[in-house]
Structure formats: structure tokens, C-alpha cells
């Protein structure tokens, strides 16, 4: 964060090197395997429950945080949540289908944003920030999804005494303990200890160059992550808003007719699902188009770039 950006910033010259397809697969598989293993270990760690307050480790966040900090955040973040699904949920027969999909997206977004925040894995404050961001994004989204589930699952949740408050209370408590235990104790602190030690040692084993603070993950990629996050949050909010408006409009007009009952509700579910898909596909297309454009630009300008760089004299190598 301390390095000042040059005013004439050309994206092509400041990018970290592109990964080959094999290297992408390596980063993906490594992150998947390690986080899968970490999740199996999590299953062993004992839980202390005081009523609804559960003092347990929901996951060992430091493992994927170290991965996204050291390697390309995109592929590491894509791999880690898959590891959880494959190793724990699938092999243990605890797979929850569509629920896993939302878990995957939440974890991916959290990790990806966390990884893009890190410029230099040797700097501990950045790792702290990355770990806390990861867990916050993941748990915040999952709380929103849980609340949304109650809203969809229970008719007129607003008018059922005590239910919304109690769900909010339980989610709030869960979020706080998760942030403290998974985010800080098993996320930020071990990551701050491990990442600087692994930096420069683990990358050569995969045939990769260590992450260079002078060539951070480009802003374009960070912008996409922020955009995607905003899109998903907004779509969740709009979904909940859609349900509430439907509930408010229909309150008092209660007819348990077959068609009436489904018509409205089904419409809103369809509309919000379509909205989410639309926003996600717009984000994905933008991202793919941009990265493709940059790649071609980089390939085309590789020679000129090298020629430009030599007289500049900023590179000590």
C-alpha cells in the first residue's frame, strides 16, 4: 500500500505474469486439497455450545488466506471452497446440494477480495486485513442468505411475533463469534505467521515466481471483485425487498386459493432469480472480456514492453 502509483499507469506493463493452464490447475488443486484437509481437521476440533452460542471453529481460514495471499487469488479462491465441498461434504455424505452452491459463492468472493487486497505477503497488516475481510464477506453473505431463507420459508415472517428478531439475534451472535474465532484466532494470526515464512519457498515448488509487490494484481481485477460483491449484495437486498413488498401488499388479503397462492410468490422468486443471474452474467462477461483484451494487449506488446522497460532503469534485476 505504501508504493506510490506512477501517474501514467499502463496496465500492460504492470501486470503479474500470466499463468499457463498447468499452473492454473496447480494453484487450484493445491488450494483445494489443503482447504479440504483443513476442513476435515475442523470436524475434529471440539465445539463448546452455550445454548445457541456456539464457540466452534467453523473453518481454518488461515489456509485459504495464505493461498490467496501467495498465489494468483482467482484460482486459489476458486479452488478452496471446492475442497470443502469435495472432501467434507461429499465424502462424508453431508452434501446439501443447492445450499453448497451459495456456500461456494460466498467463500469464493470473500477469498478473492481478501487475496486482491494483499500486495506483499510478507506484510502482516495486509494479511490481517485479508483474513478479516474474507471471513466478514463470507459470514455476512451467509447470514443474509439465512435470513432470506426464513423470509421465503415462512409466510408473513414480519407478522409472526418474535421470529424476525430471534433470527436476527441468532445470526448476529453467530457472526460475531465466527469473526473472532475463525477470522482472528484461526484466520489472521496463523496467516500472519505462516505466509511470510512460506513466501519464496512454496512458489518455486510449483514452478512459479513469488508474488511481486511491484506488480500487484491489477486494479482491473480488484475493480471486478468489488463490482461483483456489490452486485451480489444488491441482488440479495433486492430479493428481500421484493419479498417484503409482496408481503406488505398482500397483507390482509389472505385467500388460500391454489393459483393466487403461487402466482404472486412464484413471480417474485422468478424475477429475483433472473435478476441475480443477469447481474452475475453481466459481471462474468465484463470480466472475461476485459481479461481477454488485456491478454491480447500483453501478448502484442510484450516485445515493445521489454524495450520500453530497459531504459527506465527501475528494475534492479
Amino acid at each position, binding site marked *: 500500500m505504501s508504493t506510490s502509483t506512477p501517474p501514467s499507469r499502463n496496465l500492460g506493463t504492470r501486470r503479474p505474469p500470466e499463468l499457463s493452464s498447468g499452473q492454473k*490447475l*496447480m494453484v487450484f488443486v493445491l488450494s483445494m486439497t489443503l482447504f479440504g484437509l483443513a476442513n476435515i481437521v475442523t470436524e475434529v476440533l471440539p465445539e463448546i455450545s452455550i445454548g445457541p452460542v456456539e464457540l466452534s471453529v467453523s473453518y481454518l481460514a488461515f489456509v485459504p488466506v495464505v493461498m490467496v495471499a501467495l498465489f494468483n487469488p482467482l484460482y486459489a479462491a476458486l479452488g478452496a471452497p471446492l475442497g470443502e465441498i*469435495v*472432501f467434507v461434504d461429499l465424502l462424508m455424505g453431508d452434501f446439501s446440494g443447492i445450499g453448497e452452491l451459495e456456500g461456494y459463492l460466498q467463500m469464493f468472493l470473500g477469498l478473492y477480495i481478501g487475496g486482491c487486497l494483499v500486495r506483499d505477503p510478507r506484510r502482516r497488516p495486509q494479511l490481517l486485513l485479508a483474513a478479516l475481510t474474507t471471513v466478514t464477506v463470507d459470514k455476512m453473505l451467509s447470514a443474509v442468505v439465512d435470513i432470506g431463507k426464513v423470509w421465503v420459508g415462512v409466510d408473513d415472517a414480519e407478522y409472526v*411475533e*418474535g421470529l424476525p428478531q430471534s433470527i436476527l439475534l441468532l445470526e448476529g451472535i453467530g457472526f460475531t463469534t465466527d469473526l473472532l474465532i475463525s477470522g482472528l484466532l484461526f484466520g489472521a494470526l496463523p496467516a500472519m505467521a505462516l505466509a511470510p515464512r512460506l513466501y519464496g519457498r512454496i512458489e518455486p515448488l*510449483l514452478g512459479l515466481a513469488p508474488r511481486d509487490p511491484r506488480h500487484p494484481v491489477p486494479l482491473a481485477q480488484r475493480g471486478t471483485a468489488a463490482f461483483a460483491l456489490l452486485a451480489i449484495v444488491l441482488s440479495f437486498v433486492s430479493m428481500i425487498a421484493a419479498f417484503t413488498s409482496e408481503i406488505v401488499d398482500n397483507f390482509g388479503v389472505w385467500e388460500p386459493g391454489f393459483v393466487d397462492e403461487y402466482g404472486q410468490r412464484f413471480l417474485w422468486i422468478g424475477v429475483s432469480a433472473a435478476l441475480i443471474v443477469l447481474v452475475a452474467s453481466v459481471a462474468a462477461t465484463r470480466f472475461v472480456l476485459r481479461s481477454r483484451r488485456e491478454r491480447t494487449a500483453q501478448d502484442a506488446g510484450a516485445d515493445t514492453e521489454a524495450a520500453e522497460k530497459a531504459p527506465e532503469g527501475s528494475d534492479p534485476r
Partner: protein
Amino acid sequence: MRKERDRLSVEWVKLELLRTAYATRGGLLSRRDPRVVIGWYGIFAVVPWLTHNITVLAGLFAVCAVFVVLSRVGPLVLGLFVIGFVLESVYVLIAAWMFGGDLGTVLALVELTLKLATVSLASMAAFVSLDPEKLSDALLSLHAPAMVSFGVSYGYRMLPILMEEFHTVIDGHRLRAAPLPSKGLLGWRVVARTATTVVAAFYPLMLNTAKRTRTTVEALETRGFTFAAEHTDGRRIRLAHLRATWEDGLLIAVSLLLVAAAFAAGHSYPLYGAVQ
């Protein structure tokens, strides 16, 4: 202290996990085409959210329960599910009472619990029946990214090796560490020691796994893995063994019929939860 360690040892968990993962029981759904099983699951994962009628939900729940029995879901998974669900509902109930809930709240909770339970039962029946290898083929044939289906089958094969290695590293740490002078208040020293050992064990593991990953991936790439997974001919050869038969069609037809029956029953005898 000695006994405590035996019960919660890494070895015990390893064996328990492998037993759950690799023991195939062979039920109704496990003989079906994996794509059809995923489709079947899709029906029961979506339908419960489209109604607020408790009669319909009870019907769907019963159907899924029958499928769980027919799929021969193991007692461990089923037991964990029941305990988790009962505890969760009790907590929400207590919290709702604290904020002044009444019978309406209880009925609303019954509705929500039935929905969540139906979806969970369906996923248990479907995904206990699908071993990861079949699931990975089904995903590939449904045009999931090749990396995902590769990850599924890779994880399936690597799990025993990784567990073994983790166990060895933990044992090494334990052998080299001096015994704790005292357990401390409420055994906090034991907790802290366990936590630091687990974290420290990941340092060598990360390095070892990185080496192993490179070997695997380079061997795969030598044989054109990425290309073969994306190329149509490669896909066709790999997925040639997947065949949906008339029995698969029957499964879907019967399931749809049962869902329709549940809705018909709900139409005749409606019972609503939230608002009287």
C-alpha cells in the same frame, strides 16, 4: 488425559471418515444414472419453497423420508441430521419466546423446519447414493467446468494419503514437544497446544502438498489433460458409459406423481401456519 486423547485422536477420526466415505451401501438411487439422480434432487430441492401449505410440506417430507430409507442412508449421517435439526429448532423456539411469540410462531417454525428438513433429506438420499466418481462424470456431462469434475475425483483418491500424512506430521510434533507442566485453568494450555500444533502442522503440509500437486498436474498435462477435458471427442469417450434407461424415467415419473399427490392432498385439506 490419556483416555481423552484416545477418543479424540486423529487416528480415530481418520478411520471414522474413511468408513463413511468409502463404504457403499447400494440403495435405490445408487443404481440410477447420476444425471437423473441430480435431476431428482433438483425437484425436491425447489418444490418445498413454492408453498406455505403445511399439509403439502408434510407430504413432501414423507416422500423424501421414504427415499432416504430406500437409499440406505447410514445411521451416522442420519443421526447427525436429526440431532442437528432438533437442536436448531429448539434454539429458535426459545429465542422466539423471549421476544414474545405465540402459537403462530410455533406453526411458522414448523413450516420452516419442514421445508429445510425436506431439502436436507432429499440431498442425503441423492448424494449418499452418488459416489464422487459418478458425480464427477455427471457434472462433466452437465457441462460443469472440467476443473470441478477433476477436483471431485482427485479429492476422492487423495483423501486417504493426505490424512495419513497429516497424522504423521502431528505425531512428529507430539514426539518432539515436551509434556505440558500443567493443564492450566479449564485446560486452556491443552487447547492452546492443540491449536498451535494444528497450525504448525500445516507448514510442512503446504510444502509437501505443493510438490505432490506439481507432480500430478505435470503428469496430467503431459497426457493432455486440459485439452482432453475440453475437447468434444475427449468428453464423448469419457462419458460414453452414462446411459439413462426406462427405469430412470420411471423414477422421475413416480417422483413427480408423488409431488402432485402431495399438492392434491394439500388442496383438499389445507393447513396454514403463519396467519389464522
